[in-house]
Structure formats: C-alpha cells, structure tokens
C-alpha cells in the first residue's frame, strides 16, 4: 500500500504550507545559476513557472508547440479566476474556498493540497494586478467580482469574457521579461516526444523541432510537465486542436503514475454539435449562468414541435417551460456545479424534451435578465460571448434563447504528484491541468486558472528547491549519454513505423472513430457493460490505426499529419486507460457517473467505504494490463457528505 508517499506536512490544516516552507531546503543564488530546469508548456502553469524560476536565477528551458507561448489554450478560458479575497463582504474566507473546492470535487481531492490552493489564491490576484492585468473594476476604482457554479459567494475576478487571455498574457509578459533577461530560453514550435531518465531521475527530454522535423536532445536537472489535459481523446471537445496528452503519456510509459484517468469534466454550456464535419466544440462561459436561465419545454409535444421547426421557443408561455435546474436544486438553481448541470441536461434530452434539430440541446435564456437589467448591461457583461455565439449559430441570443449542450472540457485526472508537485519519478514535476492534484472528481468553474497560476507562481518555485538542493553538486549534463541515444532511437523507430503503415485513412478519420466510442461509452453516463464494450472497441480502433493510417510527406520536414498521428497513438491508449479506470471505480463521483450507482433522485452516489482513494495506474509494458495502486484519501478535517445543492 505505501508504495508512495504524498509527503503531506504534519500539523493543523492552516499551518501545513507555512510549516513546509519554514522547513524546506533552499538553493542559494550562486548554485541556482548552475542548475537547469526544463519546463514543457507555456500555458498559465508553464509560463508562470518558467518566469518565476527564471527570476529566481535558475537556467530555464521552456518549450511550446505553437508559434508563440501566448497561444497556449489557457488563453481561451473565459469566465474568471477564484480567490478568497472577500472584497464583497459576503462571507468568503480561505476555509470556505477550500471547503467549496473539496465539496465541488465530490470529496476525491487531498485536503492539504486544496487548502494550500485556497491559501495562495489571494496572492495570485495581487500578482496579476501588479503585472497590469486589466481586471473589471467598479466605478470606485476597486475590483469587481461575480459568482460561479458551486459557491454561494461572489469570489470570481474577471476581465470581460477573456479572463484566461488576460491572465495568460500577464504570465507571458513575465516570461518575455525573463527571456529578455536571459533567464529563460524559449523553444517555440517544439514538441516533447519523450522523457529521458538517468539513474532513476528525470534528466531531460527528446523534442521534435516541428519546422525541421528533426529530433533534438535537451538535458536538465529537473523536468516540469505543464502540458494541460487530455480532453481531446474525445475528438470533439472545447480544447484547442493541438491540445494533447502525449507528454503526460510519455511520462506514464517511463514509470510515472497516471492518477484518476476516468475523471473528465463535461461542461454544461457549449454550443451543440451540428454536423459530421465539425472540428471542435465552442464553450459558452459558465458566467452566463449568473443571468441566464436554463429550460426545456414542459410538454413532450411542444419539444417535438420545436425540433420540427413548427414552434419557436419564444412562443412558449412561462407555465409551459421547465426550468429544471431551479426546480431540482432550489438553493443553487442555475449555478449548480458543472457535473450536476451537465447530467441534468442529458437527463431531460434523453427523456425526449431536448430542442434543436437533433434534440440534443437545451435553452439558456436571457429574456428575464434583459428585462431586469436592460440590454446594455447584459451586453456589457457578455457581449463578446453573444457575438461569438451569433457568428457560429447565425441566431441572435438577445432575441432567441441560446441553445447549449454539454461537452468535454477539462480533465481532473492526470500525472500523479505528491504535495511538492513531484511525480513518483524523482526530478519530474507536473503542474496545472497536467497533474491530478486539486480538483478531485469535478472542478469548479474559475478554479483552473487559479490552480495553474498557484502551481506556477507560488508552489513549484518553492517545492522544486527542496529537490534541487540535493543536486547542486551534479554538473550540467551532456546529451551524449546512452540514455539519450536510446530514447531518441525509440522515438525514431516509432515515427518510422507510423510513416511506413501507408494505409488508407487520415489521422482525423480514425480520431473521429475514437471520439465516438469515448463519447458513447466513456462519456456522461457510464456502466459496466458499456465500458467493457468500449474496451473491445478501442482495441479495434487501435488496430485500425496501426494498420490503416496514411501519413503523406516525409518525417524530417514540417509534417502536420505526423504530429497529429503521434498524438493520436497516445490518445487511443489514454482512452483505454480511462475506460479501465471508469470500470474499476464502481461508484459515482463528480464527473464520473456510473449509471448503476445513483440515488433514487438520479444524483451521484459515492461509496466512501470502498472508493475514497486516488487510483494510480502504473505502466507495465506494451500489451500488458497496467497495475493500479491506491492512495487513500484520509480526511482529517472535513466530514464527507452527500453533496447537496438543493437546500
């Protein structure tokens, strides 16, 4: 059981982080100059970590697959970032933010990690304001807040509907300054393709230069993975087209545990799927649920008439509408957490009340808000989102209710890390969405930005020193060690193999097959039978991939199809692990909903006596079943309860 140690500091909850910092080892400035750190990824977590570590004096090498660090997908986060400032005097505190996050995650996150997250949340806001992030302000010149799902206070800071963009540009500007000061070296259009381990420690990476197609070797004293989540396993998701799980998967194959892979978040408010050619799904910010009301027709015949285009939603009288979230969850109403809102939408659509041509959509209606606040106020709050919606759907949301449906958005699961954000491989760290640490089985809105920046600005720059303090006598590495040659050869062989399949299907064609299996069987509602089917079907997809794939062009050149193929090979295996984990976890919790385990009212039913643990999967080799270890989640400070958003 004690195969790994989460290294949680002893003592009262509120003192753990302080006592850790007081007792940890540090690296003195002269020694920092001699230590190299590789940071893979330039999103909120990666950019903030690279900048902060560079400022401290470490020599940082920072990689991203886009043409610029500013493009990382954190940029697309819309709604906001949580912090326990309590500027609004509505009863918020560090403890309450901690509690809401633990409860929102359905009691499947570590207490100590989440408390630390809530504790550093306020520093993030201070830091961002100091960088010149233009948060929304009141007329008095002070910062404005709004509320998000899963909490009863207004603790969300925002910059219009572009909070992720502004926070990322803040981190990017800090990173750019560090590059200017020669503290960070940037590698754009580079993709990590393998991790290099020497004597049991992470010592470097192999990266593919996406412009030349050549493999290159990079060494360092520590490697930080900040490459985001694996939501694109589903093909259609709100993630960017190049978002992928490959860096995490390479770490897994080199021995890092993959934790809670089945825990994926399905976001309730996305623009519904409209056709087979569709390439991605667009999120409509959760903040819309502050003022929008979600409903479907109360009568089956009205729903049918709407689907057939014989009736318009605005024709329906108030009493013929079912505001099902307000009906089922009076205390939180339209602001229930994401998993609850998503399942409720699916339940109504499955029961035949869905709208849109496919019947897989519900309404998000602003008519009341426009009447109460006026169109100008609604426009000031959500104008850019309404514009985005109109461009895609060709419908005006000021006059007709928006149509929305849930879509894959975020993965709570990821690389296992301890309290120091280090994986079970010494010297390998994982931060942001790439790790599993803080959101349990469901992430609350506006908490991803908080976690990414907490890890990068305020946690990793401390904890990584506790590791590096023991590395000060290790000289810089050359990359001619046999371990580098071996890793490079393996990835080269893999690329050769892919190029030589010369089959008949494009990468996207097979990725869509993968997506269908995942959405149908490993999506919002899962059961044992379906998961077993999924595992069989995924084997077929894998076989199809390795026998029928076609990649045009050459390997040592810019080759987008080859990049996609390398990622898809990993997505298929990630999908398999997700299905195994989902089958194994015979309970419902947060985003993981097993149809066999629900209360009579259709709510998620946890089994704390059996499943209050983190499932940590260890790779055993090609074609071998992975082994699962359990990290028990012993709660010292909180009593687990059935989540209740009704009263």
């Amino acid at each position: 059981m004690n195969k790994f140690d989460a290294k949680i500091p002893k003592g009262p909850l509120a003192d753990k982080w302080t006592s850790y910092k007081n007792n940890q080892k540090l690296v003195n400035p002269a020694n920092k100059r001699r230590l190299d750190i590789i940071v893979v990824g330039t999103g909120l977590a990666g950019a903030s970590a690279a900048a902060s570590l560079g400022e401290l004096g470490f020599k940082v090498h920072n990689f991203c697959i886009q043409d610029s660090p500013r493009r990382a997908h954190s940029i697309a986060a819309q709604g906001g970032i949580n912090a326990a400032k309590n500027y609004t005097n509505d009863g918020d505190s560090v403890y309450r933010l901690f509690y809401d996050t633990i409860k929102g995650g359905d009691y499947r996150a570590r207490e100590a990690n989440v408390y630390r997250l809530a504790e550093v949340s306020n520093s993030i806001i201070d830091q961002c304001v100091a960088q010149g992030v233009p948060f929304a302000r009141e007329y008095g010149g002070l910062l404005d807040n709004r509320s998000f799902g899963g909490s009863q206070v207004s603790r969300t800071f925002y910059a219009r509907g572009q909070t992720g963009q502004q926070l990322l540009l803040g981190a990017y500007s800090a990173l750019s300054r560090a590059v200017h000061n020669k503290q960070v070296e940037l590698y754009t259009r580079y993709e990590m393709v393998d991790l290099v381990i020497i004597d049991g420690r992470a010592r470097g990476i192999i990266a593919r230069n996406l412009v030349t197609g050549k493999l290159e070797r990079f060494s360092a004293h520590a490697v930080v993975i900040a490459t985001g989540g694996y939501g694109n396993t589903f093909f259609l998701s709100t993630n960017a087209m190049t978002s992928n799980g490959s860096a995490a998967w390479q770490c897994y194959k080199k021995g890092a545990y993959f934790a809670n892979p089945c825990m994926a978040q399905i976001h309730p408010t996305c623009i519904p799927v409209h056709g087979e050619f569709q390439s991605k799904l667009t999120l409509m910010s959760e903040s819309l649920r502050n003022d929008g009301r979600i409903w479907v027709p109360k009568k089956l015949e009205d729903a049918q008439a709407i689907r057939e285009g014989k009736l318009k939603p605005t024709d329906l009288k108030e009493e013929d509408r079912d505001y099902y979230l307000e009906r089922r969850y009076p205390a939180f109403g339209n602001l229930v957490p994401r998993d609850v809102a998503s399942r409720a939408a699916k339940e109504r659509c499955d029961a035949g009340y869905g709208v849109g041509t496919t019947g897989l959509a519900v309404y998000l209606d602003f008519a009341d808000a426009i009447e109460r606040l006026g169109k100008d106020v609604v426009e000031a709050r959500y104008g850019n989102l309404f514009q985005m919606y109109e461009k895609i759907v060709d419908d005006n949301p000021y006059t007709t209710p928006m149509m929305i449906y849930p879509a894959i958005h975020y993965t709570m699961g990821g690389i296992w890390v301890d309290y120091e954000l280090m994986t079970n491989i010494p010297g390998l760290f994982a931060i942001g969405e790439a790790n599993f640490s803080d959101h349990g089985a469901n992430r609350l809105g506006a908490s991803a930005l908080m976690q990414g920046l907490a890890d990068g600005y305020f946690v990793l720059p401390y904890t990584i020193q506790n590791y590096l303090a023991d590395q000060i006598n290790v000289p810089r590495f050359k990359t001619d060690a046999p371990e580098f040659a071996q890793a490079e050869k393996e990835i080269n062989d893999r690329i050769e193999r892919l190029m030589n399949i010369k089959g008949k299907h494009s990468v996207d064609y097979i990725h869509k097959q993968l997506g269908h299996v995942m959405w149908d069987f490993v999506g919002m509602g899962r059961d044992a039978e379906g998961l077993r089917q999924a595992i069989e079907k995924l084997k077929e997809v894998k076989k199809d991939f390795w026998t029928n794939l076609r990649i045009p062009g050459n390997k040592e050149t810019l080759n987008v199809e080859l990049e996609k193929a390398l990622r898809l090979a990993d997505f298929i295996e990630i999908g398999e692990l997700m299905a195994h984990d989902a089958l194994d976890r015979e309970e419902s919790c947060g985003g993981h909903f097993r149809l066999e385990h629900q209360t009579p009212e259709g709510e998620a039913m946890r089994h704390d006596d059996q499943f209050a643990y983190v499932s940590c999967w260890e790779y055993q080799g090609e074609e071998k079943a992975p082994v699962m270890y359990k990290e028990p989640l012993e709660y010292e400070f909180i009593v687990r309860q059935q989540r209740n958003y009704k009263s």
Partner: protein
Amino acid sequence: MDKDINIKVKIWRQNGPKEKGHFETFPLGNISQGSSFLEMLDILNEKLINEGKEPVVFDHDCREGICGMCSLYINGHPHGPDGGITTCQLHMRSFNDGDTITVEPWRSAGFPIIKDLMVDRTAFDKIIQAGGYVSVNTGSSIDANAIPIPRDDAEMAMDAAACIGCGACVAACKNGSAMLFVSAKVSQLALLPQGRVEATRRAKSMVAKMDELGFGNCTNTGACEVECPKNISISNIARLNREFLKAKFKD
C-alpha cells in the same frame, strides 16, 4: 437558412521559406454553409490525403477566435471578408455558390513564410520581449485593491489588451508596419498606474525593436484598424506616438 454550396479555393502553395510559391486551385462540392472556413479547409485536406497528396499547411489552434494562431488572407482581407472576427470564426455562409475563394498567407517582410499558408511570427514575441511588460518579479505584491484605478481607464486598458497578436494589422498595412500591435501593448500598460512607471522606456525599446526587425513605418492609412479582428483602435497609435515623443525629449 444555411445551404450546401459548390466552390473553388485558390490556395498559395510554397514548400519552404526560400522556395518559389504558386497558386493551386481546388474545386470543392457540397460544403455546408454552417461549417467554418477552417472546417472547409479540413474537408479539402481530408480529400487531398485520400488522393495521396500533401495537405495544405495552415496555422490554427483554439478555433474560437482568441489564441491568435490562425491567419490567412482571404479574398484580399486578413481573416476574410467578415468584420470583427478571426479566420476560425469565419463561416461559409459568407460565401455563395460558385465562388472562387483566394487564400494567401500573411505577406510581410516581418513574417517569412514557413510553408504554404504558415508564417513565422516570432518577431512579435521579440518586440514584447524588448519591453512589453511591467518589470515586477513574482512575489509579495501589494494588495490588489491598494491602488484604485478609474473604471474608464481600466476599460480602455482592456480594449487595448484584447489584442491577440495575430498579425492581421501587419498583413493589412501597405508598409508592413506593426504599429497597431506595438501601440496596443504600450497603451494598455501606459493607462494603468502599474505600467505607467516604465511607459516611456517601454515605448522606446519596443519601437526600436520593431524597426530592427524589418517592419515598416506608419503612414496613418488606418487599414490595420479596419481589418483588426478585435477592433483595436488606432487611437492607441496616437498614444504610442505621445509616449515615444516624450521619451525622445527626455534623451
């Protein structure tokens, strides 16, 4: 209502930065007007792959108009004929049955072509690295509410900060000037007390870097503002000029 349309796409193909490029025309049938412009290119690439040909290379990522990765000069306009959006937000309902659509990369001395429609925009990163930030380390900053900022100033800063760094302004400019991009960052930070301290130094070093990297001068034609997918105003250029002049007087 959206229909299916038949179109021709005339696309710039170029194998590498130093190779000679040429146009290639592809007929495409039954494209739903409900699909996005990039989905239309996906369909084209799927077809090319199935025919054993090399797909067209183009930059794209978030596909929701915020990452700034997509580019494309469509029928003579950066990000296409529709206003206030990026290429990834452009939908085929902006085109009619029988249209021939011309697709080119950004063309500017500052953005060399990598392949087909993909260009190198690292010059923008270099300009930001020259000074597009507030010089503050991670650490104990003062409380976020310690300095009140007038709402209108914050809003104006946000208007400028909305720039996505796509490069449409440069592509639209007959001089290949990056002034709108530079001025957006200079303005955002000059309008906020946090950035005010370094405002003149910032303006000077960012403009110097822009000149060094081969971008042209601004002659106030205003094309950048018209084509900017985020409607960044050229009044930012006026503010940049003020900061720049102040810096020069101090020298």
